[in-house]
């Protein structure tokens, strides 16, 4: 199966449910290099079409999802979406000129917090990444990173002082990732932040951040603004990584122990043939260095 055919088996977010235009206006967008049109019928029912052909749709996690496949893999589960006392915050969309896989990998990365999200998610000299664990959950076929800890000066909109934040990361499908982190206001629950990535093509994506939080104080606008700021900072990185696609050849980039999640994610992608937005061989990219250092 080629990279595109593989990618076609999944569900992808294409809009926030609440902001789909009303009849007769439509929203046009792209998915996996194909033009699609989102329509809200007179009776309110939604549809997604590519070249006159209707695709399956799914309304979940505050977004409209679609798939080019007639028999897509089931959409991943976020059990916290059932917890009605959480606040669900779709944060809008950020267009990034990078591989959808690079966007996900960056979301799984904590070592950049002090440098990219300076004084918000991290700050010098608190740069150390303590050992953590990464596993592949064979039942769910997900990448899971646990016991991730990092010092954060302002972990969320509701945080006033620095705290050591605990994280768990899940990658339930190649272009979606979810993190669970210490809730600054309560110890018994965790905040949920996800990114749902819409692959426009192999080198462009729309990132839809989504949150399910326990935060009664901040306004919706404040929470969205906070998350948008974070993602705009990430974008300045993502649009300047070379090559644009995610290299899966271990010789092309040099990971360390802090990058265990990224290593597992890349291996997991390669093993399952999720190569849309990936570079398989160094020869695809003559600039690849031949340096190689095993993660110590």
């Amino acid at each position, binding site marked *: 199966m080629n990279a595109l055919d593989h990618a076609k088996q999944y569900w992808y977010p294409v809009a926030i449910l609440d902001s789909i235009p009303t009849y007769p206006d439509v929203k046009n967008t792209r998915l996996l290099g194909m033009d699609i049109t989102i329509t809200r019928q007179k009776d309110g029912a939604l549809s997604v079409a590519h070249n006159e052909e209707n695709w399956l749709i799914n309304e979940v996690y505050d977004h409209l999802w679609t798939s080019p496949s007639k028999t897509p893999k089931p959409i991943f589960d976020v059990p916290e979406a059932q917890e009605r006392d959480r606040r669900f915050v779709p944060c809008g969309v950020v267009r990034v000129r990078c591989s959808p896989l690079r966007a996900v990998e960056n979301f799984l*990365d904590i*070592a*950049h917090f*002090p*440098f*990219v999200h300076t004084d918000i998610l991290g700050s*010098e000299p608190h*740069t*150390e*990444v303590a050992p953590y664990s990464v596993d592949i959950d064979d039942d769910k076929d997900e990448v899971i990173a646990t016991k991730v800890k990092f010092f954060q000066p302002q972990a969320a909109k509701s945080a006033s002082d620095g705290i050591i934040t605990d994280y768990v990361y899940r990658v339930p499908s190649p272009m979606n990732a979810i993190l669970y982190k210490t809730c600054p206001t309560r110890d018994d629950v965790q905040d949920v932040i996800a990114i749902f990535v819409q692959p426009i093509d192999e080198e462009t994506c729309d990132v839809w951040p989504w949150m399910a939080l326990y935060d009664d104080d901040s306004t919706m606008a404040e929470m969205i603004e906070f998350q948008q700021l974070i993602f705009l900072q990430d974008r*300045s*990185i993502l649009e*300047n*990584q*070379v*090559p644009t696609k995610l*290299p899966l050849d271990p010789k*092309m*980039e*040099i*990971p*360390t*122990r*802090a*990058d265990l999640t*990224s290593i597992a994610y890349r291996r997991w992608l390669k093993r399952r043939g999720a190569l849309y937005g990936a570079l398989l061989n160094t020869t695809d990219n003559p*600039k690849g*260095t031949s*340096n*190689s*250092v095993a993660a*110590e």
Partner: protein
Amino acid sequence: MTNVAVGLSKDLPNGRVMRAIVGEQDLVVWRSKSGVLSAWDNRCPHRGMRLSHGFVRGEALACVYHGWHYDKTATCRYIPAHPELEPPETIKAQRFSSTEKGGLIWVSIEEQSTEPSIPDNLKAIRSISFACPMMALKQVIRDLDFTLVKDDNSGWVIQEKSDDQWMMKSIKANISLHLFFQNLSEQTCKIHALANSDCAPDTMKKMSQALEHIRRLAEKHYEVVVS
């Protein structure tokens, strides 16, 4: 094109970083706090971030993504995620040779490089970017009406010393203008301009304005050609 002029020395003070292009090669050019100049492949070996977005920490260049430090030999010396770790010597960015002569920064991406040929006694005017192909720009300069540099149009000549180095001379007015061309892409290029060291300040200013004028002419001319 062994040595290519990529900028004016005075435009890269100590502790600063810039991006440069030579041929197909994307480069980071930076100067340490003490003034050591380096030119490397513009790519961090860790996760591919463009090093030209990085920042100088003393004698090291730090990548903006995860803060890895590279010393002047382009060897990684510090990984902030593992402060106690001494990074293996094999983690290196790719280096190119760089030098300074005549007020310009020169980079060679070829193994063998010859000394840049440039007179020593020059004064930098400015670097200026053009949104047009280098060929188009050169043609505009060849067709130039020189009254815009000196009102009296006093005997200007252009010597095309090489593909990327031209000299424009006015014998009467005792001005020599040295132009170093740098190709950036098919649609963009740069000129680094210098003048003879005894050139008067107001003439320098005029020449700087003349370059601006050339930029408008060349970009407009090119727009007309493509549309």
